[in-house]
């Protein structure tokens, strides 16, 4: 196949018709070349991922103009199970010969793994072939937006965020990404997925009164990114929100310090997304539970026999993995080892039901994969990451939840986070906290933090607001050696917790 055969210009306005790997048919041919190269005695299973990704990033800060970059990469990752031992190799593709070179290296690495004495031999239960196509639905192609529209929006966000004189650092950012991800395995699956993401961010730091205070929007982790077109960015109302966070950062400079002790409070969706990520998503990753990540990402306090029995949270806690929900950074049609996406309850009424698993980890406990094998492009081995994992909404508005709270706090937007390697003891700080008195939100406080253990926290959940208050966030995550990035979706409605330790970072 020529890598120069398909260009966006030649195909028209289809937002997925760009780059060298837009053609499913041509990609399928390359996948088969790689599979043929590892069709040798001793190979029990192999899969191949052929991926092209292109990312556009623009940043602007007070001291600098527009920093713009577009990055394209195209490569292949081949995974081989040889006599029960895994091998993997990846290469950027410069020539079609690289496909066979990657396959050969993967086999060589699997043979090295096979040399270990008394090794556990992976037996992968066969999976029926699943072939298909998945496309992100996009109203406005973010790569088709005029450059002047992007520059103007960046300038407006920055100007709005930095209006107050106390703002010493401000940053605005816009991002878009598109990917062709092609997959095939020796079981006959051939899959083609074409993704598009869009996102934006604003971040300010105000200084004064002997302190520095940060505010961010829409999330404190690189802003927010959705699997969607430019319409998502437009819906964020970035300029108005930038104006708000600029003012709030200044207000925080003279805000009273949040107290220490035990308190009842409501956690907003952005902070809940992180709480879910750190203490639920990671804790339920089966590769961690089985010890595969003991040397790097860590383990889990949850045991491999917990599904169906372990009390994890209160009856108000229902947490689901569902990559079939469109529009999130954790949405897909197939995971990165070809397992079709499906909705799985992870926690139901506080009881653990399922783990996040891959085919390898699931096989080791005699279960089926829940489809959570994900990789950062072609360069890295698929490992167990969260997918689109969220807290199911309850009912009622945020105001009704504040009324139920009575006296306490409403907090949101993470400023600091830490959790132990078993995902048990955690400590989080938030950018903002509002006093709530008799159900009404009052003054702003700074330096709010809370902590405890994961089961105590989730058992303290009394109620969750309704679906109309639900917000989803795309989040980056690191795992593996060498470290790779995973991009995930988490979401929640505001959540009421009672009697949780606060003021833990003083």
């Amino acid at each position, binding site marked *: 196949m020529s*890598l120069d055969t398909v260009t966006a210009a030649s195909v028209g306005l289809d937002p997925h018709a760009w780059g060298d790997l837009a053609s499913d048919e041509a990609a399928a041919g390359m996948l088969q070349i790689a599979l043929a190269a590892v069709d040798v005695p001793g190979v029990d299973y192999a899969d191949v991922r052929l991926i092209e990704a292109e990312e556009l*990033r623009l*940043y602007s*800060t007070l*001291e*600098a*103009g*527009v920093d*713009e*970059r*577009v*990055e*394209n*990469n*195209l490569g292949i990752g081949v995974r081989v199970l040889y006599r029960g031992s*895994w091998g*993997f*190799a*990846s*290469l950027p593709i*410069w*020539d079609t010969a690289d496909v066979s*070179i990657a396959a050969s*290296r993967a086999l060589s*690495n*699997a043979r*090295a793994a096979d*040399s270990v004495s*008394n090794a*556990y031999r992976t037996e992968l239960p066969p999976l029926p072939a699943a072939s298909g196509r998945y496309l992100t639905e996009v109203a406005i192609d973010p790569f088709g937006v005029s*450059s*002047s529209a992007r*520059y103007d929006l960046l*300038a407006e966000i920055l100007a709005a965020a930095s209006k107050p004189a106390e703002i010493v650092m401000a940053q605005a950012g816009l*991002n878009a990404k598109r990917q062709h991800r092609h997959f095939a395995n020796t079981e006959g699956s051939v899959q083609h997925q074409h993704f598009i993401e869009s996102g934006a961010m604003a971040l300010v730091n105000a200084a004064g009164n002997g*302190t520095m205070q940060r505010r961010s929007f829409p999330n404190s982790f690189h802003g927010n990114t959705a699997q969607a077109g430019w319409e998502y960015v437009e819906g964020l109302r970035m300029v108005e929100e930038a104006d708000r966070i600029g003012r709030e950062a200044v207000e925080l400079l003279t805000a009273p310090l949040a107290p220490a*002790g*035990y308190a009842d409070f409501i956690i907003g969706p952005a902070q809940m997304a992180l709480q879910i990520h750190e203490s639920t998503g990671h804790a339920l990753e089966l590769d961690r539970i*089985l*010890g*595969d*990540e*003991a*040397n790097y990402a860590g383990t889990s306090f949850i045991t491999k026999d917990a599904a169906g029995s372990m009390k994890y949270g209160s009856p108000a806690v229902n947490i689901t993995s569902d990559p079939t929900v469109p529009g999130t950074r954790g949405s897909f049609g197939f995971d990165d080892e070809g397992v079709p996406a499906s909705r799985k309850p992870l926690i139901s009424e506080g009881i653990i039901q399922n783990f996040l698993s891959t085919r390898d980890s699931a096989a080791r406990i005699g279960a089926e994969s829940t489809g959570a094998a994900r990789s950062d492009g072609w360069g890295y081995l698929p490992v167990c990451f969260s997918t689109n994992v969220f807290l199911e909404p309850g009912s009622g508005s945020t105001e009704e939840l504040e009324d139920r709270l009575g006296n306490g706090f409403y907090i949101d937007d993470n400023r*600091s986070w*830490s959790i*132990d*390697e078993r995902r048990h*003891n955690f400590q989080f700080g938030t950018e903002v906290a509002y006093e709530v008195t008799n159900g009404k939100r009052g003054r702003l406080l700074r330096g709010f933090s809370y902590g405890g253990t994961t089961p105590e926290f989730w058992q303290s959940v009394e109620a969750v607001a309704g679906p109309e208050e639900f917000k989803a966030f795309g989040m*980056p995550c*690191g795992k*593996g*050696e*060498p470290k790779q*990035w995973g991009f995930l979706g988490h979401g929640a409605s505001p959540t009421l917790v009672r*009697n949780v*330790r606060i003021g*833990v*970072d*003083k």
Partner: protein
Amino acid sequence: MTDITSSRTAETFAPALGGDRATDALERALQDAPADKVEAFITSRSGDFTRFAGARVHQSQAIDEVQIMVRAEVDGRVSRAASSSFGALGAAVDRACAAAAQQAKDGAAPAPLRTDLPAPGTDTVASAFDSSLLWGDDTAAWSVADHARLADRAMNEANALGGQAAGMFGRAVTEVAFHDREAHLSRYAYASEAQGSLTVRIDDGSSHWKDMSRFSNRLGAEAAVTRTLAEASRTRGRAKLEPGEYDVVLGPLAAGELLDFFGAFGFTGSALSAGFGAIANRGGELVASSLVSVHDDATSDVGLPFPFDFQGTSKRDVPMIAHGIAQSAVTDRETAYALKSESTGNFHIAREEAPHAIPMNVILRGSEPTEEELISGIENGVYLQRFWYTRTVDPVRTTITGVTRDACFMIKNGKIAYPVESMRFTMSVLDALARVDGVGRDYLSQPLMNVFNGSASAPAIRVRGFSLGTAPIAKG
């Protein structure tokens, strides 16, 4: 396609690009680029990484990555375009130039001004770099089969002790090429890299080791396996540790983790020019014990030395803290211009963030004592091998939080006494460094998070008064 692909084979541990071919390709691609100024760099990293856990090598990986990034400037506006393929180098040049021109046409805000690169032949920092620091034939000879054998040994011996081992042994070849058309400057360097890490868990006991170097022999990986197995065994039956303030010895990995935060605490040109952080507010003051010197130094034979950054600037020894005094910030060409100084060669560009200058090869300078000698100076205290999941709480007060983990022991009368449980801590890094009264001899190096070729290297340190735990409060 260019002939640059010709050296790629199925089994090699050698530079894949080569200096002449890489810089020639860049020079040819940039020579007629329609921009006022244009430069480009190539990074290539090819590695073998053998991960293991329990009773198998579960991730036996060969990973090759290449990025070619072009920076074009038109009428003061800047755009970058990157590709993973040499075949697309010309397209990347066109793309970067067109986008920069479009910015100028659209009236986008101009990019900040930069310091100039030295004229060819005048860079005395570059000529002083010792290139023998970069490549180890021992690393080239440390094969995937060797990694697997070592992993096999660690797992078998841990199993024999009733425990489990998990870890990674790996090596990589890094190449960086750079060309600036207007400065008539081309640079190229390649380096080897060896890494090892191991966690052994036996019952409630555990120990961890990690190190990285250009030279695999310096890891002492066989001895590290032996030591880690023994320490894991010794940490079984941990006692509860009461919250409070203790005299501590931080092992090299724990001490090294503190270095990860120097960027966040304001040892950067951007923080200095914005007027916040340690250098802006406390520059020239004693902020740490006079025994403490923390440098960003990629010219030193510790960690992962390298001669230049992605802007073509020679790296140099930057004393961020010299004998306890907050002294210098790291810069790139933009922040150096704003500060009317020279770039220190710390330009950093990574995913999901804007380019900026950060510390990249951070070293807490060692002294004479062994770790045992540091421990012998504590009557009643704690040894902490490692921190985990440390994050900034307050950059102004340089406060971080995290938990202690793995081989942590009570120290009684100058000797390791018994193992203790992990505990959360929240404390100011500079306050802790101000209470250092002993700096050890032997370094361990660890990666800096999300930093290409980044490392943090430290020996053990002794700190008088380190707060551990969250004080209990009665529940409401």
